[in-house]
């Protein structure tokens, strides 16, 4: 997965769009459509996440993955579309539904799956699990289990970007459920006050665990949650990877331009329950069927690429096969990797003083 680039890709054809406002905080019209190559890459990236998550669910059912396991199936377009706008200096942080973000950051599926199975070759040497994985190398800063807590931390990463003048932006992902935590607004206030380079990505999948957003939030317009601090917020169709990609371009331009934070509310949907143990009885089968049938980000892109004659069925089959093989390889790796040695119990508690 080639997610981290030093520049955004070139545009193929720029569509004419409606100009909304001259204000920089409003969405501009300069964003570029993804190229054909990019779209094919999006497809691969999203499919990898989906197949990976399906396999993780399977391994969970087999008892190979324990504890909490929150799958990202349905939301793939959000992270794939945004990560296509990332440069090397950027950082990413998210909460506990994090496998997709790791794969989209370019982390190795083998290392992620091995962490899920609690093995030594996992990204956290088996000591973190599904919710606690990191890769400094790939700019992925977790993987945090406390709802809302990653938002000040991501804001702190953006503080470091500004302090170090490294040109980086923090992509701070969290769910609709986190938007009612007080510390989110503490972070918004400081980010706006100090014009920190952070993009708050609210993945609004309509449910905070089993409670629908309507039952949890007095105001469901989550993109407006920064308005008290003057933080602009845009709504994006999070089930459309091209729309996400374009919104990401504009957001990055705005934030990297020193204008302070921005909120992207991604309207999305998770197909599975909150975690593996959640039967998701709080929503109707029809609601789920409608989202899957009409808005699935992978199916939509596939139909578009077929209609535009970019790939034929054989082409897709070949791609699907390759991804499936990669996921199978990661699952095998994760089962064959040994459990951490008992001596690992006492390592990594503190760093040695130089």
């Amino acid at each position, binding site marked *: 997965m080639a997610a981290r680039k030093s520049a955004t890709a070139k545009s193929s054809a720029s569509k004419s769009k409606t100009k909304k406002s001259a204000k920089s905080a409003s969405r501009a019209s300069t964003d570029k459509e993804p190229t054909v190559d990019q779209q094919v890459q999006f497809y691969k990236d999203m499919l990898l996440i989906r197949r990976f998550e399906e396999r993780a669910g399977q391994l969970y059912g087999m008892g190979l993955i324990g504890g909490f396991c929150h799958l990202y199936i349905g939301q793939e377009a959000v992270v794939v579309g945004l990560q296509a706008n990332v440069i090397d200096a950027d950082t990413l942080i998210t909460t506990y539904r994090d496998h997709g973000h790791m794969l989209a950051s370019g982390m190795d599926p083998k290392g992620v799956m091995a962490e899920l199975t609690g093995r030594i070759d996992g990204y956290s040497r088996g000591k*973190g699990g599904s919710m606690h994985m990191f890769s400094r190398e790939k700019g992925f800063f977790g993987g945090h289990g406390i709802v809302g807590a990653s938002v000040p931390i991501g804001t*702190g990463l953006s503080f470091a970007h500004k302090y*170090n003048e490294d040109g980086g932006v923090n992509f701070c992902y969290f769910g609709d459920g986190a938007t009612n935590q007080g510390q989110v607004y503490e972070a918004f206030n400081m980010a706006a006050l100090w014009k920190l380079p952070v993009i708050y990505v609210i993945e609004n999948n309509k449910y905070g665990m089993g409670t629908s957003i309507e039952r949890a939030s007095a105001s469901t317009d989550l993109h407006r949650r920064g308005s008290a601090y003057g933080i602009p917020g845009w709504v994006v169709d999070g089930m459309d990877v091209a729309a996400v990609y374009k919104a990401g371009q504009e957001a990055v331009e705005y934030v990297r331009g020193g204008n302070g934070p921005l909120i992207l509310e991604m309207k999305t949907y998770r197909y599975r329950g909150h975690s593996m143990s959640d039967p998701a009885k709080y929503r109707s089968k029809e609601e789920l069927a409608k989202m899957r049938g009409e808005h699935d980000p992978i199916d939509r892109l596939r139909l578009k690429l077929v209609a535009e004659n970019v790939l034929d069925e054989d082409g897709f089959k070949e791609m699907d096969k390759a991804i499936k093989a990669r996921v199978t390889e990661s699952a095998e790796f994760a089962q064959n990797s040994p459990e951490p040695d008992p001596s690992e119990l006492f390592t990594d508690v503190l760093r040695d003083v*130089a």
Partner: protein
Amino acid sequence: MATEILMPALSPTMTEGTLAKWLVKEGDTVSAGDLIAEIETDKATMELEAVDEGTVGKLLVAEGTEGVDVNVPIAIVLDEGESADDIELPAAAPPAPAEETSSESASEPEAAPRPAAPKPVMDADEPDTGETVELTVREGLRDAMAEEMRKDEAVFLMGEEVAEYQGAYKVSQGLLEEFSGKRVIDTPITEQGFAGLGVGAAFGNLKPIIEFMTFNFAMQAIDQIINSAAKTLYMSGGQMGCSIVFRGPNGAASRVGAQHSQCYGAWYAHIPGHKVVAPWSGADAKGLLKAAIRDPNPVIVLENELLYGSKFDVPVSDDYVVPIGKAKIEREGTDVTITAFTIMVGKALEAAERLAEDGISAEVINLRSLRPLDTETIIKSVQKTNRCVSCEEGFPFSGIGAEISAQIMENAFDWLDAPVARITGVDVPMPYAANLEKLALPQVEHIVEAAKAACYRG
């Protein structure tokens, strides 16, 4: 009737102040609310207002006088018809503060006794102090930060009132001027937010010093301190180091009630993944804070507000760093070991002095670090004295004393000649009333009694 204007107490911990400037002169008429003087307290320069109207008859204390005790008359205001010549000057000895008030705790900072003639203690781990200068604890803390900030661009200070206000307790005086607003940053009142932001900045390879105005407010942020700062290294298999200092005053101040008076030593010491230090002297403060800033792990620095104004000989050298995890034997003795940290070290030394008068030789250990706890030094001492009294301001249940007792039982059971005694705060929220507050806090006589009991004396 002429009215005396007394040196006011302008902060909970103020026992004396500087009469910085008179804003009136003798013969001026004043009305209630008029500004008459500028008083410099342990925290700030405050303006003093007249309470009644009258004519300034006599200014009793000259401008610029330092160390003017609270309640000492500083001026006399005359009623109509009175003349300055009629004034009977107050007796030379100023009225002492009423005995009933919390004079003991209020005067603690300066009262913190220094061992009269401490025996030199030979300890290979004790850093060479070299040249020293007399400084307050707050100046020691400030110097530690300034020196480390000069050395390392990644170090910055963030917290409420740390920059333009110069620190709520004047600890960060002068830092904004030297290091600019980029590195000395005033935050909104948003503990959880800025603690979390600091952790993120540390993940981003900066070295934040996060100041809490008091550790009582850090309870708002304790999830970030423990779940985010202390645990992430482990959860990441060693990738996500977090070099961050959380510091600020801890423990009981004076007359501020239950929500502002609590020792969090046992709370933080309970947690693996970070270190906890609790300085007593100026050298401790400077040396431990420097060690904390240099440490690649999260370090909690539990200071004490009542000690901020205490003066000690502080090493001048930039290289004076007190190793974390090492206790210091402040006074050698043979009959009973007394362990203490931060403000209780002063009380323990005073107790040792009194015990000496009764022929009991007490060894006083300044723990300095609560995690890692220097159990080796404690055990060695107990093997010599066969008795131990542990002192802390915190609550008794699951306190540091409980841990020390268990360690001694596990490691020196056969050496004990008496049960380990725990001197702690009492098991109630801190009361406001001066007499009750005093009763709630461990006092020197409690340590003396416990030590005597351990020695089967008295």
